[in-house]
């Protein structure tokens, strides 16, 4: 990790990019320099399959130009690998002149023109990440051993680590630099082919990281053992207790609807529900870019806007959207048209140079979009044991899920497939492991039926959860489970 000491980082690169773009005719510019090193160990059948490392150093430049007397601007991006002064001076003017050939984008309404003299101070970098890749194979071995000692026959999983240094400069003079690091892992233990348990580790603070993975391995192993001999579940109506992993996937899909792009596309079931009660009083969710343990925490967004918390759901009421400057202006215009003059949304520091959809391996941004940082739910007052013991009705305890798909995202109709250990709770006690069921639900309906929130938050991020989410165990009443005909 020697390259992460910032030797290759030069603020001159950012200044050259912005100045070159402006001199070439761009009205607004963002230059973002990303230096990162990622490491991954994948394992299956209780042994390591691959050990990979990716190093990258690139400059993303976003440019816009507003034709005279026009609504909307022309925008474009260019990514320069291993940027040098020469490369920037060669590539950027060409990209700016290319803007003339492009159509206007109505949704782009400009970037943050305010001046920020300071940003939140956060410690997002643990220097022990620089040696983490050396420890990683041993951590994997310890994790596998602890899962097997707890009852697993074989163990699969992945361990990731990432260290990055971000530098940003906008044509309004905003930006700065920060370092960030984290590691995360997924452990899936199998007692037999159909009996499995999963646990995850998501950490920025790497102290005692070996013990955290050891504990996660043990948890996955225990779950796999407990789920052995599962009986076919019966379709029907049950109360449901979700682990944070499941809750982050299901309720994360609801919270994703606070993105105005999702609303524009008809893919949010929250559309038209602003200021309405959508959940119990105990339900509060914020977008939190300044929580130090958050994987996506940052002092500023990609427009250089100072990071701040945004309440999305407050005491059960749908309170806010995540915005960048463009969507905030667009929303203001929308409110104006609807004669709602008093509602003047502004950017919530959620702007990100990004792309939409599956486009391959490259992460080169194509546009500027509102994007969540970390979702943080407010914890409740229940322990898992209390949730289980107070279950008088047949209740399903779901530890993991995947393949959540929607019949209609604007209604919130979906189904999802339980994966790994699933248990039937009867008379307040975990009775037996079950299998072969599918959860069918509606996001809004399930949100209203939240009965209990756990007292501890866990950060979730894995294959099925894209936005890092701090969330507790959640209990929901009256959920439908279906079953495939054999």
């Amino acid at each position, binding site marked *: 990790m020697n390259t992460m000491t910032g030797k290759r980082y030069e603020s001159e690169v950012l200044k050259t990019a912005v100045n070159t773009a402006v001199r070439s005719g761009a009205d607004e510019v963002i230059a973002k320099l990303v230096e990162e090193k990622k490491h991954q160990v994948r394992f299956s059948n209780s042994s390591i399959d691959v050990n990979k490392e990716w190093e990258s150093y690139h400059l993303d430049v976003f440019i816009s130009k507003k034709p005279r007397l026009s609504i909307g601007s022309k925008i474009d991006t260019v990514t320069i690998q291993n940027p040098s002064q020469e490369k920037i001076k060669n590539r950027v003017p060409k990209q700016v002149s290319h803007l003339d050939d492009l159509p206007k984008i109505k949704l782009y309404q400009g970037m943050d023109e305010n001046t920020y003299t300071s940003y939140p101070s956060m410690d997002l970098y643990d220097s022990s990440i620089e040696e983490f890749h050396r420890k990683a194979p041993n951590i994997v071995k310890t994790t596998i051993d602890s899962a097997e000692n707890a009852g697993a026959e*074989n163990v699969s999983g992945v361990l990731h680590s990432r260290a990055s240094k971000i530098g940003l400069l906008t044509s309004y003079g905003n930006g700065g630099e920060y370092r960030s690091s984290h590691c995360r892992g997924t452990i899936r233990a199998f007692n037999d*082919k*159909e009996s499995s348990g999963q646990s995850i580790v998501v950490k920025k603070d790497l102290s005692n990281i070996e013990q955290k993975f050891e504990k996660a391995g043990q948890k996955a192993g225990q779950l796999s053992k407990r789920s052995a001999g599962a009986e076919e579940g019966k379709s029907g109506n049950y109360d449901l207790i979700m682990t944070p992993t499941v809750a982050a996937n299901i309720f994360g899909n609801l919270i994703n609807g606070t993105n105005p792009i999702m609303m524009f596309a008809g893919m949010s079931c929250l559309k038209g529900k602003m200021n309405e009660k959508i959940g119990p009083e105990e339900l509060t969710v914020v977008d939190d870019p300044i929580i130090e343990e958050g994987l996506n925490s940052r002092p500023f967004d990609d427009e250089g806007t100072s990071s701040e918390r945004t309440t999305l759901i407050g005491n059960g009421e749908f309170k806010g959207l995540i915005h960048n400057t463009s969507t905030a202006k667009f929303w203001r215009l929308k409110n104006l048209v609807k004669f709602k003059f008093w509602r003047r949304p502004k950017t919530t520091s959620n702007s990100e140079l990004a792309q939409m959809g599956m486009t391959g391996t490259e992460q080169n941004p194509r546009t500027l979009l509102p994007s969540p940082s970390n979702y943080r739910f407010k914890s409740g007052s229940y322990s898992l044991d209390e949730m289980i013991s107070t279950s008088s009705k047949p209740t399903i305890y779901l530890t993991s899920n995947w*393949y959540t798909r929607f019949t*209609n995202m604007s209604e919130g*109709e979906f189904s999802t497939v339980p994966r790994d250990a699933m248990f039937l709770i009867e008379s307040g006690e975990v009775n037996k492991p079950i299998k072969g069921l599918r959860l069918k639900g509606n996001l809004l309906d399930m949100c209203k039926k939240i009965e209990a929130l756990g007292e501890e938050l866990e950060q979730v991020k894995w294959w099925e959860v894209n936005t890092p989410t701090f969330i507790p165990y959640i209990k929901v009443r009256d959920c439908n489970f279906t079953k*495939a*005909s054999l």
Partner: protein
Amino acid sequence: MNAKSKNDKEQRMLGLGGSYGWEWIEKENVEETVIRESEKLVDTVNKAERIDFTEPVDVIVGPEVSGIMAHENVGHPSEGDRIMGREMAQAGGSFYRELLALDKEDKQKNNIDQEEVKIGSDCVSVIDDPTIKGSPGFYLYDDECVEARPRYLIKDGQLNELLLNREFAAKFDTCSNGAARSAGYSREPIPRMSNTFFEPGEHSKEELVEDVDKGVLIESFTEWNIDDRRYHSKYVGLEAYLIQNGEVTEKMVKRPALEMTTPSLLRSIDGISDDYEYRMNFCGKSDPMQPVSVSTGGPYLRMREVRVG
């Protein structure tokens, strides 16, 4: 696409594309396709009604639905790396592991002869073919430089061939059949699908319908999912019509749901149409995620005695 009526809403994802240049836009007549599909969505949101089928009925699925079934229920479980457990913490495993009796206890338990694993009815053959020019999953050599060729994953109802790269071919003691694909230079080439479809049969669509007393014709779908062993699957129809007395009626059925295991789905098929149509899609797998373009399409399939939810 979103359509809204007074009381209802429907959504449609439509994948169009191919391995062409700009000429594809004219060839495919994209504008007309989008208009036609939009009109069908408007029809669905305005006309479709829920029907409770208390007894199993016959179901005919169109190219879009048969394509996703070929992809999810047959293509994915045929991937060698899944069968050997390599994707267990990500994209999952495959019930083929038990079917092929790769573990001693399964061999003893099921008394299975690996050469004769019957999984579907006799008329069912499923092909993965990367050599179809212009298709979304087109390539001539895979990402390990192995020459591409069509692969019969299921032939006449029997498991026939798996999807293998060099690494997993060696584990199965055979040669790669050119299924290694990588989403980029910095990603592993792993076993992937290309264009996966049920082999067209001998009937016309009309002939398939003629022989149905009561059933549903499902032309497109919305929600779908499958467990990570690729065994329990679910497909919810979008544009769907009631079939009565051998004719497709104008009565539209709202969101008919098929929730079936892979063997029950493949064994229920008794007729396949002679035409073929494809849609473009992206398939995601591995970690880091590797999206690759594939086609999901095929002929019409007739499935007998199916429970419709």
